[in-house]
């Protein structure tokens, strides 16, 4: 069973329905005990970084998430679920993340850009990665965010996207997968990515 963590940060229904559409069994949960037993963990979420961290702490799922990641169980972070993996965010002053990856979360700075970065943009693949199996380099995914991650270790960058400048739109290391865009809102291409994650978890 794949656990989708519900910590009060928006549209989980689409993530759940997306997985179901491609035949992957998931459950939405806010209980640390369920996360502990899950085969894999999905952390979605839109909104503010601090609310996300506070939501995770309030439910006592931080340790369960970190344990799942350290145990080698597959993790898929979506949007905020990517950003919280990093050391800290500059959103609303400074806010500590899970620090699984060294790096910061910073705001788009170029004054010519519309913020949030909202809409369909191309994802340029930097790794040969099972999460993107069957998805062409330069495919479009749906984005909506004002902050992006800056990893210290360039080797974890799985994909980049151009918005004023290249930024990291997906990271991957071992069992940890995380994307800035919303596969659950990216039509067929997005569903393919969710299906790929299901294959990574169940090895079929």
């Amino acid at each position, binding site marked *: 069973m794949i656990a989708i963590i519900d910590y009060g940060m928006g549209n989980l*229904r689409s993530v759940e329905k997306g997985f179901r559409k491609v035949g992957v069994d998931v459950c939405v949960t806010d209980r640390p005990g369920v996360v502990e037993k899950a085969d894999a963990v999905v952390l979605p979420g839109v909104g503010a970084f601090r609310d996300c961290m506070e939501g995770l702490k309030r439910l006592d799922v931080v340790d369960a998430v970190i344990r799942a990641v350290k145990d080698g169980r597959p993790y898929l972070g979506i949007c905020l679920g990517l950003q919280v993996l990093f050391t800290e965010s500059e959103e609303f002053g400074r806010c500590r993340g899970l620090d699984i990856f060294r790096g910061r979360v910073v705001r788009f700075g170029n004054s010519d850009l519309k913020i*949030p970065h909202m809409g369909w943009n191309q994802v340029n693949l930097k790794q040969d990665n099972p999460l993107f199996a069957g998805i062409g380099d330069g495919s479009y995914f749906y984005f909506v965010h004002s902050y992006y991650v800056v990893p210290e270790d360039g080797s974890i960058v799985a994909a980049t996207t151009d918005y004023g400048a290249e930024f990291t739109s997906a990271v991957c290391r071992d069992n940890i997968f995380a994307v800035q865009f919303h596969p659950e809102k990216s039509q067929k291409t997005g569903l393919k990515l969710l299906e790929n994650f299901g294959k990574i978890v169940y090895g079929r």
Partner: protein
Amino acid sequence: MLAKRIIPCLDVRDGRVVKGVNFRNLTDAGDPVENARFYDEQGADELVFLDVTASHEKRRIILDVVARTADDVFMPLTVGGGIRALEDIRDLLNAGCDKVSINTTAVRDPYFIKQASERFGSQCIVVAVDAKRIREDMVYEPEEPWFSDPYLGEVRLPPPSPSESGGPVWAISTHGGRKMRRIDAVKWAEKMQELGAGEILLTSMDRDGTKDGYDIGLTRTISEAVRVPVVASGGVGTLEHLREGLVEGKADAALAASIFHYREYSVHEAKEYLRSKGVPVRI
């Protein structure tokens, strides 16, 4: 590169799709989920449901429409119309909607936008700006009580002065263009952005339903005034109108209803046309 978005808009009343000319003369024409699936297959970038349900008792029908649509169609979904309280936004988001579009409630209480964006995030709060070019004979609703607030009052439309010969001026309307407000549309859009709006859905009420094309002056002025994305709306009759709104009007997205709804053009045809003119689109 970020693609310019093409967004079909479906007017929904009592759970059924309708399309009005200037928001009136509505004619019944279909099931919302079927329509959404149709636009999904054509490669629409987002969908907007404009809920024009009049009766308060029937308003919860839209939640079922959203839920059934979101179960089947995996693309961004915006709902506008009838949002009066934070609970309305929460219910829509829980049903599977991604953004809500707010007009009248923002005019009644601009700080509602601040509360909503702080609670749910700016990314899901769209402010619908229904703008009309001012005329001398225009009749306005009584002044808003919040005009006395020095910060909010900056958006107040100044009294007309014959000596000034500046560019065109647009005022805000509510209730589908029937009620004019003494609010400057450009300053209003800026204020809404400051209070947390993540996107502006800009409709020219002069052009809506005319098929004469977007009000390019209005679209460009507001696109250049704010840093959040602007969706152009009102007046599309041809594919060239879409290009004008996105290129000359500098809009980030183009919304249209009747040209898609009555199958005059498909979304795919629209995108092929735009691509042939050098506009970045997702095909």
